[in-house]
Each structure stands twice: as C-alpha cells, then as structure tokens.
C-alpha cells in the first residue's frame, strides 16, 4: 500500500487523496461546483480497409482476439456486469491474459460479483494490478484489507460513463459478453439462452475503447437486431459454448419479502408518495429490485389502481412487478437500465414500450442533462445514514466494502429521494452520528423511511407541509435515532479503521467525495 499519498480535505469535510493511481484528482468542491474543461475522449480512427470485406469479424478464440488487439502489460481491460453472478466472460478474459503471460492489468468492470473471486489469485500472481469498479464479497475483503496494489475507485453507473467519456479512464480492450450477436459484431442482450435484457453498461466501452471484442454463445446471421451494441465499433467476434450460467444471470422469479418489518417500511413509503401528492397522473418513479423496493412497487401499484392514477414512465432495473404496471396500463413506458428477472427480459424483448436505456441517457452528469433528473421519486437503500441525511451505501459500518454505488448517486437527482431502510440491522443502528463512508451528500436526500417512522430532511419544508395532518408517523431523524439507540443498548462504539486509503468514492462529476480506509478485521 502506498501510504505516502498526499491527502486533502474536500468540501464535504472528508479527507481524500490528491492523486489516485498516478492521476491527479479534483477534491469534491460541492454539488454542481465542478466545471469540466476540454473535449471528450475519442478512440482512434479505424477504416473498413482494415476489416474483413464481407464483415465477418470472427476469430477462433479469445486468445487470438486478445493477441490481435495487441494486449500487453499494464493495459486496461473492461467488462460489463449484465450477466451478474452468472458471468463467465470476465474471468475468461483475464485468465486468458494470464496464460498469455501478461502482467499489471487494470480491470475495469461496470461491477464485480462473487463469481469473479478468482481475480484475487490473478492479483496475487501480478496479472491484475488493481480494480476500478464495485467490489464486494471476497474481492471487497481483499481490497478492504489493503492487499490490492492500486487504489480501488468506486463510481456510480453514470460516473463510470463520465470517467470513460472524459478520458479519466482509457479502456484499451473492451471484452463484451453478448447473449446474441452476429459476425459483424452487432449484439443484443434481449435474446439467446443467456439473455439478460439490456446491454447498456457496455455501451460506453464499445464507443470509447481502443479495441472491442464481442464474445457470444448465440451467433445469428446478420442482422442481429436490435443492435444494442453496434458492430461498427467492434473489432473481433468470438464464439464460445457458454458465456455464463443462465440460472444466475436472471432469477426465474423475483419474490416480495415476507418480512413484516420490511413490508411495513414499503407500505409507509408508498403511502408517503400517495399522501404527498407525488403520486399523480403522469408522474414517474424508480425503485430497485431489493425486497423493500419490490414490495413498495406492489403497494404503490394497488394505490395507483384505487386512485385511478397512471405513471408516464417508470425506471428499471425491471422485474415482473414493473412489467405488471405496464401490462395493466398503469405506466406508459419502462425506461430500463438492467433487467433482473425472466419477466423483465421477455417484456423488453417483445414490448416496444419497455425501452433499454444506457448510463449515458439515464445517469451521466457530464452530459446535457440526464433522464433521472426527470424522475419524480426514487426509493433507494443505504447501509448507514446520519442525522444530516448523509448516506453510505458502499461500506459496512466497520469499513469493509459491501457493495457498489450502482445508479444510487445518479438517482439522487430525482425530485424526491427516499431511503427505505430498517432502523437497525441485527443490533447495529442504521442512523448514526457520522457515516463511515460518504456516498451521497445529505442535501440530496429528502426522506428516510424506517419501520419506526419517516424522517423528512428539514431542507424539504415543502414535503413537511404536504404531510401535515397525515396519519403517517412523521418523526425527527434524531428521535428515531434515540429510540433505536435505547433499544440497542446505547450508541455503538466507533469501529477502528486503519490509516491507509484502500479506495476512493467518486461523485457523479468525477471529483473525489470520500476515501475508504483500510479495515481492521
């Protein structure tokens, strides 16, 4: 670990490295304060004369493709995570690179999963230098313990697009797992035995990488439509027997939680949205695929039906619960970033109102606006939130990396941001004095809904006014905190954290919001 890093304090009061993996950083200056300069990055110009005249870009195997892409030490290799824990392609790419004797790669996935734990061996062997992307499970522990040679960089989905587009991260070779593709390189996630729905997370990689390899287990004759990935950006196509385990790519069914406490939270959130009038004809919302979010969607669906209210659009990650809204005419469109279950995949493949989006359209802050600014209300989770509504989603309270940022930061730009969280997990209070790792500034977070009551950010006087007289349990966040601390037997101890940074959390504009410190465990 490099412990001679220069550290600076940013506008959120957090201490962050001035340089990350050899690149100078801008410390978070406040929301909307950073003015980017210059032009976007661009890949080299290529010409058709360098590609097969009949458009057949197939090569026999991934090793050939990587060799012809000029793979060498120190390069950056990227993958997408639409195949989730079922993905086989990322490991295939890195292990092939290992066999080719390459070293010191930077792996740049849009997210990593436990299925990719073997990357630890590749880091130990020197093949992979470090990872910039979400880490959890064994990879998270490896990074948290300070064993990775470089610093981890955690970005939101929008932030990853921004980093690629702004040239902060240059992808040498993008290896894109494609559930269906043609020999020209057009690819879609909607079809094939390994179908996953959208391929939006791979779009920036396909546009900005020097070289692009499409790996598929379902090669179809040209044209592969819809071409979520355009073959015009693709160098090579590799056919393999399998790109992953379909059972882990999407779940057969997604089930609502039966935990009465979680259902209570979901119901409170739905009632809040109804009673504040956010739920009205033409509104829009986004909720994830976690237990509370699914239950929330189901409660809201019933309330929309009762009130005769229809949404103009809903944002995925989609599940059968969103698909039901569409089918019942309770929403005009699903704008979908990723697809979590079979019902979602099928709907996207067949229903033109179920639209695949990319992080560029939905989330990228360094663009001319992004869709999530147009969403009326989002329902998100968090591991911790403090009494100023600052929230943490990336680490456990003891500093261990827990999960990626995903679209979480980008979603904070919606009209109303609601964190739906239990007030304590096991014995650990969720409302704390100060979050371990700042992932979202409190001024962006409007409501914290727990099973013990709903706290509204005092900055949102308008929301406070709108729930006056409502039977909902509206409470001050400090009061919920105090009650939970009484139940749990006092304030928790502050976990001991190490002195060395192991990762940084980027804000949506590429500035450094916080540092993840080495965990002691």
């Amino acid at each position, binding site marked *: 670990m490099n412990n001679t890093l220069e550290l600076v304090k940013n506008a959120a009061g957090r201490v962050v490295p001035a340089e990350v993996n050899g690149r100078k950083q801008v410390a978070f200056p406040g929301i909307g304060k950073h003015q980017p300069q210059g032009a976007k990055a661009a890949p080299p110009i290529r010409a058709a004369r360098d590609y097969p005249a009949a458009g057949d870009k197939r090569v026999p195997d991934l090793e050939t493709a990587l060799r012809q892409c000029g793979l060498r030490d120190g390069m950056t290799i990227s993958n997408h995570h639409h195949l989730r824990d079922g993905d086989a392609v990322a490991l295939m790419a890195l292990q092939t690179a290992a066999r080719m004797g390459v070293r010191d790669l930077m792996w740049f996935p849009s997210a990593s999963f436990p299925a990719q734990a073997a990357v630890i061996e590749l880091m130990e062997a020197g093949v992979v230098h470090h990872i910039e992307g979400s880490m959890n499970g064994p990879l998270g522990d490896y990074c948290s313990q300070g064993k990775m040679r470089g610093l981890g960089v955690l970005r939101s989905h929008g932030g990853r697009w921004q980093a690629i587009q702004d040239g902060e991260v240059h992808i040498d070779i993008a290896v894109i797992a494609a559930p269906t593709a043609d020999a020209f390189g057009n690819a879609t996630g909607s079809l094939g035995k390994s179908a996953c729905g959208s391929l939006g997370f791979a779009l920036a990689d396909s546009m900005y990488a020097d070289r692009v390899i499409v790996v598929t287990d379902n090669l179809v004759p040209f044209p592969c439509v819809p071409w979520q990935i355009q073959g015009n950006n693709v160098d090579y196509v590799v056919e393999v027997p399998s790109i992953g385990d379909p059972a882990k790519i999407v779940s057969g069914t997604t089930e609502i939680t*039966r935990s*009465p*406490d979680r*259902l*209570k939270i979901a119901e409170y959130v739905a009632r809040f949205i109804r009673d504040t009038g956010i739920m009205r004809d033409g509104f829009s919302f986004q909720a994830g695929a976690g237990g509370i979010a699914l239950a929330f969607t189901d409660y809201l669906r019933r309330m929309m039906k009762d009130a005769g209210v229809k949404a103009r659009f809903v944002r995925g990650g989609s599940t059968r619960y969103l698909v039901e809204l569409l089918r019942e005419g309770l929403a005009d469109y699903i704008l979908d970033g990723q697809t979590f279950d079979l019902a979602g995949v099928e709907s996207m493949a067949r229903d033109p109102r179920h639209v695949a989006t990319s992080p560029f359209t939905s989330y990228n802050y360094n663009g001319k606006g992004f869709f999530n600014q147009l969403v009326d209300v989002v329902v998100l989770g968090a591991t911790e939130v403090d009494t100023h509504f600052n929230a943490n989603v990336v680490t456990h*309270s*003891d500093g261990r990396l827990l999960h990626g940022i995903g679209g979480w930061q980008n979603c904070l730009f919606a009209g109303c941001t609601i964190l739906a969280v239990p007030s304590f*997990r*096991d*014995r*650990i209070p969720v409302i704390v004095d100060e979050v371990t790792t700042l992932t979202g500034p409190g001024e962006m977070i409007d409501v914290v809904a727990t*099973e*013990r009551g709903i706290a509204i950010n005092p900055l949102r006087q308008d929301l406070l006014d709108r729930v006056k007289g409502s039977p909902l349990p509206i409470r001050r966040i400090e009061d919920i905190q105090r009650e939970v601390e009484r*139940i*749990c*037997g*006092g304030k*928790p*101890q502050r*976990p*001991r954290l190490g002195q060395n940074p192991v990762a940084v959390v980027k804000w949506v504009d590429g500035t450094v919001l916080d540092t993840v410190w080495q965990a002691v*465990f």
Partner: protein
Amino acid sequence: MVASTANLRTRFESGRAGPDVRSDLRVILEPRHTGGVEIELQSRVAPYYGDSIRAQAQEVLAELGIDHAHIAIHDEGALPFVIAARIEAAVRRAGLGQGLRALPQSVPLPPPSARDRLRRSRLYLPGSEPKYFINAGLHAPDTIILDLEDAVHPAEKDAARILVRNALRAVDFGAAERMVRINQLPLGYEDLEEVVPEAPDLVLIPKVEHAEQVLAVEERVKEIAARCKLDRAIWLMAILESALGIENALAIAGASERMVAMSIGLEDYTADLGVVKTADGRESIYARTRLVNAAHAAHIQASDSVYGDVGDLEGLGRWAESARALGFEGMGCVHPLQIPVIHQAFAPSQAEIEKALKIVVAFEEAQQRGLGVVSLGSKMIDPPVVQRALKLVERARRMGLLREARTAQGLDTT
C-alpha cells in the same frame, strides 16, 4: 484454575447461535472457584457492541453472585435483554444464583388494560424466539402473547420464562396488551412466579377443563402480586381445548372476576374428538357457538382460534368474517401480516355503522323528548335493536371508525 472433575458436568449452556440465528446468543458457562470472570466473545456486532457485551456479562454475573467463571458467548446480534436472560439461564442451569435475578433496564409500563378493551387480534410470539419480540408492537395487534406453552420445547421452558420476563420489562410493545400464555399447572406456577412480578396485563391459561384451574391460577397471581406490591390489573383468559372444557364453558367463563375472555384451541379440540380439522370448521361449529354463548352469558369476550395458513390471507379474511358473524370479538394470529386482515374483518361495515348511528340518534332524540318508543321514519325500533346499535357504535368508536361515518352524516363535528 481448578481442574474439572471427570464425572461432574462443568459446562452449562443456554441460547442459540449459528448462521441461521438472529438476535440471540449461545452462552457456555463454566463455573470456577478462583481466577475471577473470564469472558470469551464471538459476535457479529463486536466492532460496535463488543465492549458493551463484555461489560454486561460482567455485570449480570456479579448480580447473580458469580465471582469466578469462564463464560463463552457466541452472539448473533442479541439485544441486551436477551443477553441478560441467556446468561441468567445458564447460571440457573448450573444450580447457581438461587433467588437472584439479573433484571434488564425497563421501559415505562403502558397504561393498565381495561377489562373490556378491544381484543380483535392476539399475536402469538414463541417465548424462546427473541427476534420476533422486538418489532411485534409496530404491527399494532390489540394483544401480544408471549407463549411459554406449545411454542417452547420442554427442555427450554426454564430459559424461555426468564427471556419472557425480561421482554415484559425491556421491550416496548406499543399500544398492545401484554399477555403471557403459561404452561398447564403445576409447571404454570413456575411461569407465574417469574412473570407476574413484571405485570403482564393478562395471563392466558391453556387446556382449561374446570373452573378450578382458573381459580388456582387466580389465587397464585393474587398472591405473587401482593408479595411484590403490584397494584395493577392482571386479567385472565382461558383456552378450552377439549370436549370436556367446552361442556364446562359457562362455569369456566364465570369462574373468576378476573376472567375477561375465553378462546378455543381447535387443534387439540379436533384431536380430542378424533375428527379432521377442515378449512370451513364444520366439525367445531358446536364447540365454537357453545363457547360464544357461554362467554356472553358471563359477560366476557369470546375469541376464536388461530388461522394457521399464513400464506392464505383471503381464507383468513373469510374465516374471521364468519367468526364475527358467530359472535366472536377477535381471534389469534401467528404472523403480523394477519393483523390488518383480522382488524378489517372484525370491523363493522360503513353501512352497518351508518344504520346503527341513525338508530342511536333516534334513540337519543326519543329520550330527550321523553318518548318511550323509538322510531325511525314510520318504523318502530325494538329495544334490543337499539341495544345492538348502541353496542356496535361503541365498538366502532373504539376502532376509530366513527368520526368518518358521523361526519359523513353531518351528525358529529367533535
């Protein structure tokens, strides 16, 4: 350190731990003669509450008079009242700490329970599963039952009653009435000894067949309450679970002034008859109506059995509606999701309320004008109809259903 004698049991366990366990802990206690207290702690919340757990273990052992022991704690995020209970159970199993208690910090007692309060839903909480206690009150059942009887394995009765005692002190059950289901006598006496000092609102007596069983419990409750100078209502409720119990329903219902409600246990009752328990409950219709009648004769509440299929909320709703039609005022539940369904089913409909309100208004007017006969339009209303309307309106008021109806009728602006 003292070498353990080969023939003597030297390790005393209580509680549970493991990957599937939440909000509990396993304690392994080895009493010693010298060396002070040595604590070995493994806990998923150690970074946050490790110091607190160690300090609490020291404190609890000291209160129980244990100066020398090795104690291994494997904690799964248990709250302090659970930690205290598990340590105390291990100490008692070691035959130590006689006559001593390690009582956790208490929350304020809720207001005492009224004899005829609403008891639509009573939520059973297994007495050895602390994870279900913690948020039970948030789901707003009318009553929670800390169950020491059927839900607790015979080998765990001793530990469960300590846990339930601590829960009565330390857990905020919100507006719910706090009930404890004791074991059959004589084991139930030991339960009463432990829990009555913590002022449960109601003691639920299982498998009652004779009025004497109720009287025996009443006597012991009074005795313990007097001993701890507890001046607070502790009501009784009986569950009849056999043919004989049903035949003695009236005597049981009237056995004690403290009796406020009576219920039926259908699993045991149908087993006693040797018949199959069916979804529509035809086989128990006599027993249930008999019980309702006896309860009303003794001016106490009749409460129905539980509906066991947690996945079938529609079936539950139908069962509860038919129970209400038979004259039951509530029923048991085994999952919080059943509570709103039951409350809905036991609530009179808006149409019923509005009709009853019209009758009540007519009755009040007739009284004001000194008329002996109540009439609504051209129709004369019989006194029992007036009585029923008054009861229904009062019940609707307690369920919070009245304001809406009265306002809708322009009858009430208070």
